[in-house]
């Protein structure tokens, strides 16, 4: 039996972040606004479309989602 345990790494560029909270609205299980800036609740997360949405919706392109193992960029899409 093979177990595929894909993990994603979500990072916030705190210099770019202006704290709109759009990301926290899209991905409340993974991202919150702390002291006026977006913060990830855990360094890694299981695959969840919500964090892709959060990264795609950030007006400042401050959120990045990568495959934790390979480092492949998953979002934002450009």
């Amino acid at each position, binding site marked *: 039996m093979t177990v595929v345990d894909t993990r994603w790494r979500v990072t916030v560029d705190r210099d770019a972040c202006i*704290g*709109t*909270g*759009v990301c*926290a*609205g*899209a991905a*409340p299980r993974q991202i*919150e*606004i702390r002291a*006026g800036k977006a913060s990830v609740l855990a360094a890694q997360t299981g695959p969840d*479309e*919500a964090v892709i*949405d959060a990264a*795609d*919706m*950030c*007006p*400042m*392109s401050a959120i990045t989602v990568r495959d934790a193992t390979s480092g492949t960029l998953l979002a934002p899409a450009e």
Partner: protein
Amino acid sequence: MTIDQEIRDYPFRESPGIDIDPTYKLLRSTEPLARVQLPYGEVSWLVTRYEDVKTVLTDPRFSRAAAQGRDQPRTRAEMTYEGIIGLDPPDHTRLRKLAGKALTARRVNEMREGAQRVADEYVDEMIAKGSPGDLVELFALPYPTTVICELLGVPFEDRAQFRIWTQGLTSTSEQLTGYIEQLFDYMGKLVAQRREHPTDDLLGALVKARDEDDRLTEQELLGIAGVGLLLTGVETVSTHIPNFVYALLTHPELMAQLRADRSLMPAAVEELLRMIPLNPAAMFPRYAVADVTLSGTTVRAGEPVLVSLPGANRDPKVFENPETFDFTRRQNPHVAFGHGSHHCLGAQLARMEFQVALHTLLDRFPELRLAHGDEGVSWKSGLLVRGPNRLLVAW
């Protein structure tokens, strides 16, 4: 709700000019969860503290979708057309992503030169017509209208039509539904043209998202393009430009400071946004879907909560000297554009438009002033936005 708590009539009495009603300050310190009765709809909570406002706008236990079908607290009999602001994630996310891609900071920065050209053209026309003139008609309305038309791909020549619809949507008009239908018909024709001849403007991109990827319905497409982008984009910026200019002209020390150091412009725009309310009353109540305690009072599941953005923006726990304009604030985390999922989709565009507009007016009119003092200024009487509908300036 606490049974013996006073129910206040809301909106509070209209404050003159760009001021806000002192009741917000009183409530923030003594009654952070106030009970209010609007002209229509059920009794609501009103929150005025920064932290509570942010909680209501981000906590998933407060829902916009749950407001649908309820007798929402509101300022006129008919329900406001809601579209995207009536949705919660993930439905909301699907729609927001489609338009949001065109309005990121990077994309907006690419539009700055075009906006500058548009602003200069209207100032050229003002100068050709001669001083004095009405800044609203000559600049504040046509400038953002042109910027949005170019972004969306809507013919500027049709602006007289959609101006009527905008005024209908932002007044107490009984014809709201009729205006929405006319606007949808109009957008429908532009969409049909794009199906014949695809375009690379934002409307073309939305049509492509609908037809090729089935990512939104026809009604959603017409709503987000017509109401969400066209009408909202024009009404907000065209209202705040005269507000901001009025604030500078009636605070000569601020005008002098900005003229002396133009690098203050981005911070000045943020401070003008923080201090000057766009709406005369809180709108779009969130409905609690579970019991939630805010500032020591429990909001029960099923109850509506209105948030006051101007109230939050003057919270002394967050802003030093909150009632004073200060273009040198180091931190200005205001919530003029809202917060959370429904944070203004066009915020970056609006910021850029304000900065370009004010730079241009300061550059081109070194002696800009009110032409007849407050006699030359009249104010909108509608219920959705507040600002001058006439601002006579001389130069």
